[in-house]
């Protein structure tokens, strides 16, 4: 589907999930408003691996179950190319988040906009909201 015709969507990084787990009201309301607006929410499997440490609240677990997206080989290759292009700073998981958001035409929701700003050098259309 052409990028301009895609519905509004957000790709979440680990920091957003951690903030929700820590009951940061602003971030919880942010995700709530995104869902109420009909936006799609996506969480790459790599983010789940970074975040998941067992004792996750069932509400947050339900959200992860609904929003989690498996990686594709093509996407992780693009993430690797992005890391090679931008050098030190962003993690592999950051690059996978950026690659998914770029692929789906979504906006990254993150608690660390700096690393995604660096990744924008590779994903030129990447949009990032710091929460």
């Amino acid at each position, binding site marked *: *589907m052409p990028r301009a*015709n895609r519905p509004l969507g*957000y790709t979440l990084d680990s920091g957003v999930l951690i903030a*929700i787990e820590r*009951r940061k*009201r*602003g971030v*919880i*309301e*942010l*995700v*709530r*408003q*995104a*869902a*109420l*607006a*009909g*936006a*799609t*929410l996506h969480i790459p499997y790599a983010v789940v691996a970074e975040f998941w440490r067992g004792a996750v*609240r069932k*509400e*947050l677990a*339900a*959200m992860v179950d*609904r*929003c989690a997206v498996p990686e594709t080989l093509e996407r992780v290759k693009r993430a690797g190319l992005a890391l090679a292009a931008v050098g030190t700073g962003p993690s592999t998981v950051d690059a996978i988040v950026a690659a998914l958001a770029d692929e789906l035409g979504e*906006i990254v929701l993150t608690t660390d906009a700096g690393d995604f700003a660096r990744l924008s050098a590779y994903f030129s259309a990447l949009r990032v*909201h710091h*929460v």
Partner: protein
Amino acid sequence: MPVRKITVSLDQALLREVEVQAEHAHLSRSEWLAQAARRTLDQAIVVRAMDTLLAEAGGPSTAAEITRARRKLGLTPRNRAAR
């Protein structure tokens, strides 16, 4: 997962809208409706989960908190026009 077929009734105007959107997305009407149902269900589950977590974190958001969140998401009228 096995597929179970159901029948839904749509008025003419709604059916036409569904057909337009499905064509736009290069999907059959059935596929488009199933995707819309899945998306709506996912969103409802996320909203319910956030409602529960907010309740535990002090109660529903204030109008100011809601406005701040919508502004950050670019959902305020001014931001939407610019998006």
